[in-house]
């Protein structure tokens, strides 16, 4: 949640970020579809997603994107 004036509201980025929620997302979905998933399975799947996301974030830092704005706005 991000404080904006006196109102706390989620920014889109907060809503869309799944850091740390992978376990929960996978667990909830498995439950919803009636899939028996052991804790170990769930954690392993979540860890794979986290590892992949981490690799993508690392790639992003190594990748020099073109700056979409003129330098004086930086």
């Amino acid at each position, binding site marked *: 949640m991000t404080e904006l004036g006196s109102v706390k509201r989620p920014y889109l*980025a907060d809503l*869309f*970020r*799944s*850091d740390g*929620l*992978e376990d929960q*997302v*996978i667990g909830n*979905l*498995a439950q*919803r*579809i*009636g*899939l028996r*998933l052991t804790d170990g399975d769930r954690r392993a*799947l*979540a860890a*794979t*997603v986290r590892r*992949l*996301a981490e*690799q*993508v*974030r690392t*790639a*992003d830092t*190594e*990748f*020099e*994107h*073109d700056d979409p704005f003129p330098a004086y706005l930086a």
Partner: protein
Amino acid sequence: MTVLPFLALDQIAEAIRTKKVSPVEVVCDALARGRRLQPRLNCFISLLEEQAIDEAQRAEREICLGRYRGLLHGIPYTVKDVFATAGVRTTAGSRVLGDWVPQKDAAAVASLRAAGAVLLGKTNTSEFAAGPTTANEHYGPARNPWDVDRVPGGSSGGSAAALAAGIGAFSLGTDTGGSIRMPAAACGVVGLKPSIGSVPRRGVVMLSWSLDTVGILAHSVEDGARVLDALGPARGVETDAAPSPFRIGLPIELLDEPCDPEVRRIFMAAIARACERGAHVERLSVPWARHALPVNNLISWFESWAVHERIFVAHSKSYGEAIRRRLLMGAAVGAEDYRTALRIRHGFVRRAEDLFRRIDVLALPTLSVPPPPVGAEEVEVAGQRISTLDALGRFTRFASFTGQPALSLPCGLTGGGLPVGLQLIGPIGGDRRLWQIGQEFEAAIGWDRPVPPGIS
């Protein structure tokens, strides 16, 4: 005339056109091979015997009446079972669509039908085209004709296995992360992935909207390129002249990734043979290229979850274990990471454009290992244990990610008698030039289409 299933497409076509052989003979021969080899290779989900003979008889009548439609008229072929076929069950390798009989052909199938080609059957695939081994949980694993204890690659593994066994002159496949090139390499045939969007995808069961590409598996680059011509206008300039000496780029960092030493040696020997015929080689530092594997995977997982979400929730028990796990993981990928991945891809494509100002093709082994044993979750690569998925897909993601045209062609056999594939990647829209360079490589390598042992 003896029907030779490994003849070049234009030779079979010429024999049909001049009535030295009838389409019915050619098709019946291919069906007989299919029937005989299916128990060993499990390359088909549906073999369409009656329909194929009907179509062959129609082709024969038309040709006898002087209505020859062209190169593909009466030519038998197969289709990966993710392409909709009017009146014929289309499963996408899943129980979810186990009884689906579409009313319309996919666009690519309709084009081939209009050209008079004869559909032999729907080939085995990884469920929903997700996975590089064609270890299908519902219809059984497809097997490699070179060694039936090995995978044929995937996800178009049934297509590659059928073709390598001489069943059909070519096969229609799809490629999202290497699903045409990987099985082509594993089975010793050619796989062509054109620039993304070149061939219409209408009627293909989707895996990833931004990555799925329709392409061809064939016995030679020329055969594949000629079939692609029937599917839509090819991109790039066609020249009759032999291509001028071309420039090959070798991406240093990708080639430093774990790769089976024998695969690497056979690949480098093929590059050396191309150089003997005048090609120039440049070793290029492309450190960013190694990011293609994870970023492409994240995009594919995210999009395949979005594609399946509604159906998955209602029919999850009909999905196999492997795709179910993949979809669960796709559901947990955050949209921000997907956004980051798309942004990386944008930068990646621009860098690739710059790269291809210096070279004509980027060359890599197609697979980093020989085809692994059926059921192996890990393989040993240069002393390291690596997941089979990563070992198979490590080198194919680059062109999937950028949408560039790419091909795989056989460049030799390991000491154990397993095929090794060489992959060439061209610039977006440079398909024709890439196919020409592929033919130059074929000539340099001298692959004489050996028939897998035990396949007569």
